[in-house]
């Protein structure tokens, strides 16, 4: 803290009271550099401690320090402006996360379909090849077994059993090969794209969470400065089911609501009376 105060002092200009008087200055505001240094230091310390506790990014720590400093200086309007900026930033981030999550889901679906197609194509070819080899082997076996009719009947059964077992083995081998390809071999373009998207969504989500946390702190700071009084209601209420004249009140409230809804519709249909004229084309 003392070092910070010393730094501020080293950046200040020295003048004398006489010099100020000569310049026509009659009164001055005195700023205690030590107090200012302490304020900055405390704000930084609090923000860093909080950022470290939640594993926040450097931007989060900087944002937190700004909020903390404004709060300690009692800058209500600055906090309000900062809150508005954070709110806008948060909305933009939420929108980006939404878009990217959609793209990611679509890409995953496309990749799964494409892999399914590849797998199916590979299996069809292999099956045909297997059938060919099996057919040739068994044909040869049939030739050799013509002298023994009982063996010829067994060969048909053996052919079906053998084919099923070989197909099973083939499927297992293909399934085992797929993850090996992902882990060992260099990733294909689709995998890279997916990976990038997933990382981007994770990063944006983290930013969004940090932005929400900063906004909550800003609002808390504003409320504290304004001496805000919390409402007794945590959530929206509505008429209690056991209210006196419950039915009559419900119909009155419904009528008020409908009237206001109608008013909104009328407002939306009306041209804005305070809008600027439409320029060249207007008469």
């Amino acid at each position: 803290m003392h070092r910070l105060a010393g730094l501020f002092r080293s950046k200040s200009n020295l003048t004398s009271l006489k010099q100020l008087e000569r310049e026509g200055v009659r009164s001055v505001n005195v700023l205690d550099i030590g107090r200012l240094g302490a304020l900055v230091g405390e704000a930084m310390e609090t923000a860093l401690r909080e950022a470290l506790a939640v594993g926040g990014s450097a931007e989060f720590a900087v944002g937190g320090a700004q909020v903390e400093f404004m709060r300690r200086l009692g800058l209500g309007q600055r906090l309000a402006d900062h809150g508005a900026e954070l709110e806008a930033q948060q909305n933009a981030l939420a929108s980006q996360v939404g878009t990217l999550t959609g793209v990611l889901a679509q890409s995953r679906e496309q990749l799964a379909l494409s892999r399914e197609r590849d797998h199916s194509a590979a299996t069809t070819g292999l099956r045909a090849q297997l059938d060919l080899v099996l057919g040739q082997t068994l044909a040869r076996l049939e030739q050799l077994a013509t002298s023994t009719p009982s063996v010829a009947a067994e060969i048909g059964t053996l052919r079906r059993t053998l084919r099923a077992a070989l197909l099973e083995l083939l499927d297992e081998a293909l399934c085992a090969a797929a993850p090996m390809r992902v882990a060992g071999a260099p990733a294909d373009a689709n995998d890279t794209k997916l990976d990038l998207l997933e990382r981007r969504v994770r990063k944006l989500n983290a930013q969004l969470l940090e932005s929400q946390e900063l906004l909550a702190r800003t609002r808390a700071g504003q409320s504290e400065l304004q001496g805000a009084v919390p409402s007794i209601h945590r959530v929206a209420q509505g008429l209690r089911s056991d209210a006196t004249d419950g039915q009559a009140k419900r119909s009155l409230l419904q009528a008020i609501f409908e009237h206001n809804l109608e008013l909104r519709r009328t407002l939306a249909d009306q041209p804005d009376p305070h809008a600027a004229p439409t320029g060249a084309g207007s008469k």
Partner: protein
Amino acid sequence: MSETPSPRLRPTNPSGVLYMGIDLGTSRTSVAASNGVRESVASYVGYPKDVVAKKALKKDVLFGDEALGNRLALDFYRPLAGGVIQHSDGDGSNPDAKRFLKATQDLIRHAISLARPKQDELIYAVVGCPAQCSLRNKSSIVEAVRPVVDSVMIVSEPFSVAYGLDLLTDCLVIDIGAGTTDLCRMHGTMPTADDQVTTPFAGDHVDQTLLELLKKKCVGAAISIQMVKDLKEKFSFVGEKRDPVAVDLPVNGKPTRFEVAAELREACRSIVPSMVDAIHQLIASFDPDFQSRLKNHVLLGGGGSQMGGLREMLEVEMRERLGEGRVVRVDEPTYGGANGALKIAHDMPPEFWEKVS
């Protein structure tokens, strides 16, 4: 005039819901909120005329009595007249319309800030307007309130007074404000246009009448409308028996004492005939089986209800013209409308608020 502040941004993770009832009155604006805060401010707004005034006043905008006290250094606005935003009935081409709308928005923003809401709470507000307010006037009120709350609904002012007191059937509410006197008969369902009457004979009319009478009576005295308002707020009465009302008015700069009780009574009485006519009209056109109940449940609210002897005078007039009548004054005339609006806000189902937000 200062720039319009940015509209309120809806909190994404609200920590609570603050309900507010707002009585946006010609003379006073009152708020009652679900955090227990109730505040009232005179409906005046002022912007420093120049940099000198701004430097002296150290503010961009002043409200209420502070604005009134410094009005000579300000572009001074009384944004409402006759219970509605001034110039809001035109097509918007009048440049004053925009200025008055801005002043109203600033006044509402200030009134809401008096309720000390938390930044991260949703604000749902119900605003009272005169009983026979036009659609354009209502739209202007919505337009003024919308940027500073998360959701807003408009209700007729006398209706909100009745709702606040749980008097929903066979009751006649009279709300005497500065700009208008609103009457509304309640019969268990939503009052229609036929159930409501608005007259311009209210507090401002009394002020104007009194000013004219005093000018005649107190020859040579310099009298402002503000002096007249102060005088009325302290001594207003309509009864037969009266104490002397002595007031010091400057004549050629020198305070001079005048006795003005007769003028004060005459001015206060000037709003009674139209009120009695409206009571008569609403009772006579009501279902005959329920007229007697209505006559015996007349509720008097609003700042004007504080006039000494008014309740008794209305009862006498009603007995004469309608055979009977019983009038009761509400306990809190300043907050009657705001309290009722707050109750409506609280009872309104949450999904309705979402739909009009």
